[in-house]
């Protein structure tokens, strides 16, 4: 199994940390992982993306132009990465702020109202975990308990009290994801 994923949105949305948790979850189930961010003079409000690969084999290129899954969280990223999804691949996006919705018919398209749900749950910071939950419902490439283990590894201990909140956000995402 190899899953090549791009997660793209605004800086501050938790794009890079969502990727990190996914990568750690892969390690928890003995997979090879890579996490390659777009880095540069970006800051909050700018665009951010990360390529995450989980595989049972040694990973070749950490930098890719075609993906099994694209998780898209703003319009700029939609413009850039819709075309990069492999035929038969998955595009998951939050329609909040999207003006030009995806038009491809040769891929699976799902939506998750992550921003809206996070606001309803009273904490905009759990947005990325709702989106992660939505992704894992469609493609259960890592088990939920490995995600929780991954969260424990990637969060400093002083934030471990927030793990139940993150878990409920993941579960919310799993319930609310919709096929388009």
């Amino acid at each position: 199994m190899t899953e090549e994923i791009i997660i793209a949105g605004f800086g501050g949305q938790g794009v890079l940390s969502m990727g990190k948790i996914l990568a750690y979850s892969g390690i928890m189930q003995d997979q090879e992982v890579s996490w390659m961010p777009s880095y540069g003079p970006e800051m909050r409000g700018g665009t951010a993306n990360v390529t995450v690969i989980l595989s049972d084999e040694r990973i070749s290129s950490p930098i890719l132009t075609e993906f099994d899954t694209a998780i898209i969280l703003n319009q700029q990223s939609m413009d850039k990465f819709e075309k990069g999804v492999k035929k038969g691949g998955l595009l998951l996006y939050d329609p909040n702020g999207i003006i030009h919705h995806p038009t491809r018919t040769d891929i699976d398209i799902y939506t998750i109202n992550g921003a809206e749900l996070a606001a309803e749950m009273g904490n905009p910071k759990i947005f990325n975990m709702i989106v992660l939950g939505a992704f894992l419902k469609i493609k259960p490439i890592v088990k939920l308990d490995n995600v929780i283990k991954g969260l424990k590894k990637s969060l400093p201990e002083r934030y471990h009290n927030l793990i139940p909140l993150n878990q409920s956000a993941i579960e919310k995402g799993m319930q609310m994801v919709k096929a388009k």
Partner: protein
Amino acid sequence: MGELKLMKGNEAVAEAMIREGVDGYFGYPITPQSEVIEYLTTEEPHKRTGMVVLQAESELAAINMLYGAAGTGKKVATSSSSPGISLKQEGISYIAGSELPCVIINVVRGGPGLGTIQPSQADYFQATKGGGHGDYHLYVLAPSSVQEMADFVEDAFEMAFKYRTPVMILSDGVIGQMMEKVELKPQKKRLTDAEVIKKYGSWATVGRVGGRERNIITSLDLDSHKMEAHNIHLQSKYEQMKKEDVRYEELQTEDAEYIIVAYGSSARISQKVIQLARKDGIKLGVLRPITLFPFPEKPIQELAKRVKGFLAVEMSAGQMVEDVKLAVNGKVKVEHYGRNGGIVPTPGEVYEALKQKIIGG
């Protein structure tokens, strides 16, 4: 199985230095390697092992601190990225001339000048052909994964002390910034002063032990005959490296008709090209130099006897390709494909270049 962590290349190399029992690190921050000193200062290794971590006032100060500390037989290292490494070249030449062991990490970014903060491999000439003035080489290791960023710290110090020479770990912004699974080695003990005197007292400035002549560390000798003899001695070390310590990896070369030669992150991208090419029935293999100096000439010579062509893939305008051409020596076609200024080539474009320049050309 050691401890598994998800780390950036820059963090892995820093943690590996602590675990290697390094005595001192002297550095100055620069993107894309600032996480090295950031990690070291956050981790406070003086509490774990007694290791000194010092942010110098400049790259020049850092390299000269390294020079002085290396002279005492201690295990010492520095790191920087391209423009900072250029600033360090005078000191590196002095360290090579004075025959001192140390490790220098270069997480390469695009140049020339201040260039860009994005990944590049355009410091190949500087790393392998000297860099500073005079006839000298560094022993140069090129990691292509986060695991190797960690593992090569131990290997680099082994070579540094074997040859009493500065060793460079030549990385790039991709390997420095990406996170991968890394298995960390157990903590080694730092050598005590008594152990350093016993092991390196014959050359290091550790005080006059047992009334012997004083050890003098210098790169200066105004007697040209002595300086020529010193140069011949240095060259004999480089010849010994070529005989004993060349490292490389061959991937799917057994039946290959075409070979990509690539190191570091370009080697990772080229591994993906193997998959693309083999899907189309093209027998492609990759030769990955792990040491850039000494360069793996012999395996390339061997492959040149049976393959149809070589493509050197590097994030530069064509530097390593010259060493590939020297090794192939005109037997078959050698071409170069690269991107510059911080642009990382995609597997697809490398595959296209292979088809156009080597297979179709």
